[in-house]
């Protein structure tokens, strides 16, 4: 299978033909269209937006606004003012946990998360629980290590105020039934908060159809630049929440002893916004739309399936997570007798970039009983030759380590 997007669209990949980049779950490479859009904005329309006394500032404001409309359209959102630009998924989730959590949670309320959350959707809730006296409850995985929706359902009660979960796991690559979990939360009057960092780049996300109250994603994992991301929210909740950060742009009137807040989305975007990042993210959304998100999904699943099957066929290799047919573009694995870090070093010498470690999911790694895994993740610019290089690298590592099991 050839790559879905031409490698030549990506200057870094085009400039390093030997590079086998299999760490897109950490961050994606950038198409020229995104780099050009950011440069073009900075070269032509750059000024501080929302200060509109002169035409250049008006143009910058319009570019920021247009970027929001474009990204909202990409995420299937009819209300673009409920799309908050943030630094990324981490900031989006902290915003909800802090601004919504601190004003809505009290002693004896419960927050339910899964044990497979990335630290960014785990620690903010754990900490807001400690600060408010709410209980932090963790849905345990099934025997296969995957999220068990029944275990999650059993924890959701009248005391539950928040159900926080991921759309696609960054470790195991399984996809959760977002709509069902949102319904579960709403049936008891809780809010549903979804970490979409590993879904937004890889499958069609229609916020208005998902049913969740908040959805977070990062631009840099979906061909956009680092430092820009989104929080997609429901307007009534956002309007009822206190602001997260205070400063310029987010205020309406400031008096000596009190202040009032600007309307959405500005209320949650204190300070000079990252307009260049938003312009880049909008260009990334257009780029992905042109490929078609269903095609992106199909391409990655096919590569991951092949990688899963070929890795699992190697003696001593364990592939973690769902079966080959059910995974997104993420393949986590371990090799008997070879620590994932050693494996990553050996692959690196062959120009193959993979991730090794706990993937910011220590609670899940403890439950899987592994300290670390190796993770290969696929995206639109990968092809079958990249899978070949990965498999050959694992064979080479086993040879170097002498096939002996510790």
């Amino acid at each position, binding site marked *: 299978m050839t790559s879905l997007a031409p490698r030549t669209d990506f200057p870094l990949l085009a400039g390093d033909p030997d590079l086998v980049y299999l760490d897109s779950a950490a961050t994606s490479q950038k198409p020229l269209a995104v780099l050009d859009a950011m440069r073009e904005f900075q070269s032509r329309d750059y000024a501080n937006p929302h200060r509109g006394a002169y035409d250049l500032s008006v143009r910058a404001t319009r570019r920021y606004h247009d970027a929001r409309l474009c990204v909202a359209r990409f995420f299937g959102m009819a209300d673009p003012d409920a799309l908050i630009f943030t630094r990324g998924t981490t900031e989006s989730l902290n915003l909800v946990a802090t601004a919504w959590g601190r004003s809505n949670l009290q002693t004896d309320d419960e927050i339910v998360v899964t044990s497979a959350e990335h630290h960014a959707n785990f620690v903010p809730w754990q900490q807001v629980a400690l600060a408010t006296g709410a209980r932090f409850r963790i849905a345990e995985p099934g025997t296969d290590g995957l999220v068990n929706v029944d275990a999650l359902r059993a924890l959701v009660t009248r005391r539950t105020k928040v159900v926080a979960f991921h759309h696609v796991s960054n470790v195991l690559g399984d996809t959760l039934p977002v709509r069902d979990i949102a319904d579960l939360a709403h049936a008891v009057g809780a809010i549903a908060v979804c970490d979409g960092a590993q879904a937004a780049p890889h499958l069609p996300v229609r916020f208005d159809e998902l049913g969740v109250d908040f959805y977070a994603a990062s631009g840099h994992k979906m061909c956009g630049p680092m430092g820009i991301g989104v929080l997609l929210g429901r307007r009534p909740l956002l309007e009822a929440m206190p602001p997260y950060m205070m400063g310029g742009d987010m205020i309406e009137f400031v008096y000596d002893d009190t202040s009032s807040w600007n309307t959405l989305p500005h209320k949650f975007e204190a300070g000079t916004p990252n307009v260049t990042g938003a312009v880049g993210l909008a260009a990334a959304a257009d780029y992905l739309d042109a490929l078609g998100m269903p095609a992106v999904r199909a391409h990655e699943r096919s590569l991951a399936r092949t990688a899963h099957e070929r890795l699992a066929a190697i003696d001593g290799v364990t592939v973690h997570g769902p079966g080959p047919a059910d995974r997104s573009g993420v393949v986590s694995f371990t090799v008997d007798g070879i620590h994932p*870090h050693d494996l990553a070093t050996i692959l690196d*010498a062959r120009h193959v970039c993979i991730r*090794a*470690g*706990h993937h910011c999911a220590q609670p899940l790694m403890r439950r899987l009983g592994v*300290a670390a895994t190796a993770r290969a993740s696929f995206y639109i610019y990968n092809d079958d030759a990249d899978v070949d290089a990965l498999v050959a690298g694992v064979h080479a590592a086993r040879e*170097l380590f002498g096939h002996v099991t*510790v």
Partner: protein
Amino acid sequence: MSPSDDRRSADLTALYQDLILDHYRRPRNRGSLEHADATVTKKNPLCGDVITLQLELDGDTVRDVKFAGEGCAISQASASMMTQLLKGRSAQDIGHVAATFTRMIEGDSTAAADASLGELRALSGVARLPQRQQCALLAWSALTQALVSHG
């Protein structure tokens, strides 16, 4: 493969040589001490490697040492080889070795030629792998802390 690929491959073969892999698979002084005078646990939060180092001391001389934990071949071999050098030596003496080892890992070729490092010189290739230097130094950071906390 390009000449630079050949070099990278040769570097790795030199690093993951039999000596290192032997210490990885059959670590020396692995276990725990019943009457430890100093116990230090160190973790590398980046990769999840963890080591617990225990020392039995006679004044400032190391009488016995054991380590436990898990990690990659580099961290485990480094810990295993380190423990072989410690018994019967003074804190000051050990401090010199630790400083020399650290300099070697950070790329000092004079340090890499220092015979006082013994088998540890097999780890000199880590100097060319900046992302792995912390692996090689984890046990040594536990050792330094154990000696400082006791002294």
